[in-house]
């Protein structure tokens, strides 16, 4: 095990104010189960889970309440004991509406009183899933455990982890990369996990190595987190095999999967639909890795996570370990409430997070941060014409021409945007960040991508329908 400095700086990138000092030195604090939880059935990338409970049901902590619904999907478990108060569409952290189970956790006693079986109040709580010994368990058992524990990428996108850990036939994982860059401003959740849960991360790495067939391991951390680097060095000091800690230059978006792969092993992921596994890499967020070790060794599914609550409008910024489904308002109350009335509430960080309209939203497995910003931190823009200054080109980590895409989309010219490779855009926000004309370039890119995706879906559906018709016709001819 050794620590090396990354030699490969990607082109572009920006330096937003990190503002991490607000919450950096706040140890992780555990939040007592709130009275109400809003547990979304769509906490991950892909198809929402299928709800298994109905209103009035009593559920136990860890009980399966949402079933995985398709290949790219993740199951959902109750993050506390309680009574299902309602199942309804609720606003999610990303702004979209999704089915959510509203859990009344104060109804627990009542549940036991009403129950037909005799309750055993003093019985010690056992593990939710049977603990596994990772050394003796088979690869398939471990993978199954990751799946049934409902683990998805906790860095932001929420990609199902068991899918990521099962490379398609013919592809092999050569490098397992641990993403500890946490390049989003304000957020310190991963940083605290690295400091306080280093042995769990180490164990998670050993389990993942086993599942993936002993790839080399690279632990990527930005140079501005020396304590985290030290904690990882200590935790991994006696590990065997090819393991390196790679110190990355401080540059946004260093935490982006593709840029991290480049910075650590100098491989370049081709344009979409290519994935990191196509260049032999699997990238996992450090929090996810710790969750895997909990799921295997302790039998504890992913029911809670660390969320950074920060911003200049919060009384005391904190890193909170809270059950998934905790409402934003409960998190803010735990931080001592608002210091000043916030002008903007953001799910996530300031570069890629989502502005939301209310604190009445439940956290998910991917909620890394909640920011409350005062009016002085909220820039109000009126977008001007592009002056062709080229700052967005220089900032774009994907080396696109964001100016051209934004100008094309202003005229609803999706074709030009597509020709300018807009589908390669990772929506990191570096272009809009530096735009002196305050153009909403990232938003233009999102619009272009959404409209291209919609068109591709329509084309696929049309092709399918045509094929179906062809088939029917052929069958009809045969019958005749």
């Amino acid at each position, binding site marked *: 095990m050794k620590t090396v400095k990354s030699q490969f700086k990607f082109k572009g990138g920006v330096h937003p104010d990190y503002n991490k000092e607000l919450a950096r030195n706040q140890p992780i604090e555990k939040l007592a189960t709130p009275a109400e939880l809003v547990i979304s059935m769509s906490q991950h990338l892909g198809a929402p889970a299928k709800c298994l409970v109905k209103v009035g049901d009593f559920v136990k902590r860890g009980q399966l309440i949402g079933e995985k619904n398709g290949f790219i999907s993740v199951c959902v478990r109750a993050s506390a004991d309680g009574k299902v108060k309602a199942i309804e569409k609720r606003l999610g952290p990303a702004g979209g509406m999704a089915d959510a189970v509203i859990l009344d956790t104060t109804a627990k006693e009542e549940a036991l009183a009403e129950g037909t079986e005799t309750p055993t109040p003093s019985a010690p709580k056992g593990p939710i899933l049977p603990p596994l010994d990772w050394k003796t368990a088979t690869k398939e058992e471990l993978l199954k455990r990751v799946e049934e524990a409902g683990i998805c990428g906790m860095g932001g996108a929420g990609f199902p982890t068991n899918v990521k850990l099962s490379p398609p036939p013919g592809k092999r994982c050569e490098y397992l990369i641990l993403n500890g860059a946490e390049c989003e401003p304000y957020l310190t959740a991963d940083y605290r996990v690295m400091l306080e849960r280093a042995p769990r991360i180490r164990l998670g790495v050993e389990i993942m190595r086993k599942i993936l067939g002993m790839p080399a391991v690279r632990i990527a951390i930005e140079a501005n987190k020396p304590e985290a680097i030290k904690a990882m060095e200590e935790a991994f000091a006696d590990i065997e095999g090819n393991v390196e800690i790679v110190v990355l230059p401080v540059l946004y978006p260093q935490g982006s999967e593709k840029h991290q792969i480049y910075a650590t092993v100098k491989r*370049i992921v081709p344009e979409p639909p290519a994935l990191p596994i196509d260049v032999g890499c699997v990238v996992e967020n450090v929090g996810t890795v710790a969750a895997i070790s909990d799921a295997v060794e302790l039998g504890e599914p992913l029911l809670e996570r660390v969320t950074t609550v920060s911003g200049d409008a919060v009384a005391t910024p904190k890193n909170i370990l809270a059950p998934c489904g905790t409402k934003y308002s409960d998190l803010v109350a735990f931080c001592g409430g608002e210091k000043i009335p*916030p002008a903007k509430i953001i799910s996530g960080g300031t570069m*890629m997070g989502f502005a939301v*309209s209310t604190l009445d939203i439940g956290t998910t497995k991917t909620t890394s941060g909640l920011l409350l910003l005062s009016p002085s931190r909220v820039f109000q823009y009126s977008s001007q014409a592009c002056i062709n200054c080229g700052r967005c080109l220089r900032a774009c980590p*994907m080396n696109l021409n964001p100016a051209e895409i934004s100008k094309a989309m202003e005229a609803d010219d999706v074709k030009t945007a597509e020709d300018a490779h807009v589908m390669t855009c990772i*929506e990191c926000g570096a272009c809009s960040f530096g*735009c002196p004309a305050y153009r909403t370039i*990232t*938003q233009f890119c999102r619009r272009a991508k959404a409209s291209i995706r919609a068109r591709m879906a329509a084309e696929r559906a049309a092709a399918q329908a045509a094929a179906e018709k062809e088939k029917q016709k052929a069958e009809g001819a045969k019958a005749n």
Partner: protein
Amino acid sequence: MKPKDTQEHFVLSSSPHAHADSSVSRLMLDVIIALLPTTFMGIFFFGMPAVWTILVCVATCVTTEALCRLAMGRNNTIGDFSAVLTGLLLALNLPAGIPLWMAIVGSVFAIGISKQVFGGLGMNPFNPALSARAFMLISFTGPMTTWLKPFWWRTPDAITTATPLATMKTWFAAEATASATPHGLCNSACCGVPSLWNMAIGNIPGCIGEVSAIALALGGAYLLWRKVITWHIPVTFLATVFVYSLFAGGAPAMMQVLTGGVMIGAIFMATDYVTSPITAKGKLIFGFGCGLLCMLIRQFGGYPEGCSFAILIMNAVCPLINRWTQPKPFGAK
């Protein structure tokens, strides 16, 4: 938690929610600041006529911008300082003694025809100040090529003169007829061409803002330091002029760089965002093209000075250069 009726007041917008705090007006202001040294040098050498020309151009440009926006029913954009900058740049590219009504006509052309007709800042294909200068050069050839001597008030009997460029132009001709000797060159130098030192500080006849190479270089350094411009265009532009003159004969290469509009053109005109390529590679091509065309016009053209036309021609080619030099996405084949 906030009461329900105030929840509507949270700002909703697409990410990113952070901004580098740069702005168009700040960029324009930076260019204006960078022009101050050469503006002061121009006033120092050419006196009150320079002051009046600058004031009239700036005032006319700002007024024209406001009136145009009003007439088009669009928002007022004088706050972005681009009209102030255009006025200042135009004035610095005029001879100090120009009749003020001509400066007014030129300023109206710069903003009205060259910029607002196309939709305002960001839409104009040609540099407004330069196209106005070209328009004036063709319309008012006499006054546009009558130059005040530096400190003309000390020599009241002969206040106007030819620029060093006009003299230098004859050297190309002299070389072409193969009659030039080093001795002959020296003679011409004694008659019409100032010393390198005078060229560097600006003690030579010329447009208000183009004479002092040192002041212009200072402004260029400021723009590079503030990251308003990149090195690509100025360096390739100046290097092309220098190298061309090394091989083409005529005036010494340093003289070609330091006289006429090359310095102000390379640092302030060719680097205009709107009318220059957006990629680094494109900027290199653009700078090279400007330098080459400038020297071709100086050597073979009908005008002693070719800098403005060179940049304007390259402005026209800019969309093509942009098309040729699209960046290759990270991960693309």
